[in-house]
């Protein structure tokens, strides 16, 4: 087909023949791209952080809780904040892909499309964890509650993983519709109710000093939910993003 590859200013490029290496490199490339773009624009993290801090501030003034009630209410307030801020981040993350047709650019790459899912999942998880890392100390100061508990950190990690595993899949579906901003929470919240319940119960257990064995059912539920939804997304992502 080519006239003469040696005379062409664009010599043929050989691609990597190792599919697994290529798969992992693609995930890394998507993660790098999302982080680099966010470092420049700061759009996504700013929106998530401002929103999350406003939510805990509003709860602080609206509820005006005494010390004992605060301990009981803390897991609920925290997870409501994470869930709302997370939705904002998921929507924005996918909207940036839709901008200038970039999502099509991703889908046109000759990689297994699940690599796109995992790349987006990891970057969404990173953004969510950054927001949580800022929210926790601010919450501790505002509500005069000690949140530096290894068990709670573990629950937040697992809960966030489950949340973004579901959220990344559903936001990939929602982004292809005209009503994506409205559609994502409508799709997402009913599906993540088990994660939120388990995360609130487990967080509450750790904050109130309940024995680890009593908290294990909730932690197991979080773990199973994260694994199942990651596996489901791995299998169906290709169909979800195709017209």
């Amino acid at each position, binding site marked *: 087909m080519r*006239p003469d590859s040696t005379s062409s200013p664009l010599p043929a490029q050989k691609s990597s023949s190792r599919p697994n290496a290529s798969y992992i490199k693609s995930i890394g490339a998507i993660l790098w791209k999302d982080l680099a773009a966010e470092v420049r624009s700061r759009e996504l993290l700013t929106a998530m952080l401002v929103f999350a801090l406003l939510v805990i501030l509003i709860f602080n003034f609206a509820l005006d809780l005494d010390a004992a009630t605060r301990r009981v209410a803390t897991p609920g307030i925290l997870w409501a904040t994470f869930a709302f801020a997370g939705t904002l981040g998921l929507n924005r993350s996918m909207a940036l892909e839709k901008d200038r047709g970039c999502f099509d650019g991703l889908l046109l790459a000759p990689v297994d499309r699940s690599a796109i899912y995992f790349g987006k999942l990891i970057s969404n998880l990173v953004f969510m964890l950054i927001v949580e890392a800022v929210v926790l100390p601010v919450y501790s100061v505002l509500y005069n509650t000690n949140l530096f508990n290894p068990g709670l950190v573990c629950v937040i990690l697992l809960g966030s993983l489950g949340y973004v595993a579901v959220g990344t899949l559903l936001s990939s579906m929602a982004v292809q519709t005209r009503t994506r901003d409205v559609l994502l929470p409508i799709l997402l919240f009913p599906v993540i109710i088990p994660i939120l319940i388990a995360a609130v119960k487990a967080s509450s257990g750790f904050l109130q000093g309940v024995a680890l064995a009593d908290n294990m059912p909730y932690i197991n539920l979080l773990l199973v939910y994260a694994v199942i939804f990651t596996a489901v997304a791995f299998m169906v992502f290709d169909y979800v993003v195709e017209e």
Partner: protein
Amino acid sequence: MIVVKKLVKRFGLKTVLRGLNFEVQDGEFVALLGPNGSGKTTFLRILSSLARPTSGEISVAGFQLPDQASAVRRNLGVVSHLPLLYGDLTAEENLHFYGKMYAVSNLNQRIDQVLELVGMLTHRRELIRTFSRGMQQRLAIGRATLHDPQVLLLDEPHTGLDQDACGMLDHLLREVSGQGRTIVLTSHDLSRVEDLATRFDVLSQGVITASAGRIDVRRNGLAEFYRLALAN
């Protein structure tokens, strides 16, 4: 290089492509003409594996769609009226990202070649969102040819470009075409493609209604060829 047989695409009750047959030889530059809503974009999205056909057989660069979609994508470059570039990354970073996604070897050297080809070497460290539409479209061609694909699909690449930018894009397309690539370009602007393509096909109501080479078309002019094709 591209063989399509009895391609049908339905969206719910609406049939967009109705048993379309289409064939492109190696190195051909085919302009796919047709009015708005004739199914040009849908057809190119199916050829590029972004959409699944309802029925029919499709082969691109020797690979079947949708079963060998990944292999097809490796041999395919796509340019649409959107640049498919990230606004918050520089020109170089965008190419670097896509190069990683396509597992292009000697990537830095290749990026230099592509930036030189599209005349963007001096803008390599500028953010895409600061680029004019014409510059974005030139870089989009660089992105599409980065992995040296055998087939280039261009969906209305002139949309939104001013006269100068169109001229620059045409010059670039001739250069890319001269490297022996097979090109399919959709357009409804006849004057734009008249001197570019080696073959002209008209897509109307979901089927190809006429097809002719440049020499045949020039006898009566592309406008007359197009008018007759739509009248059929």
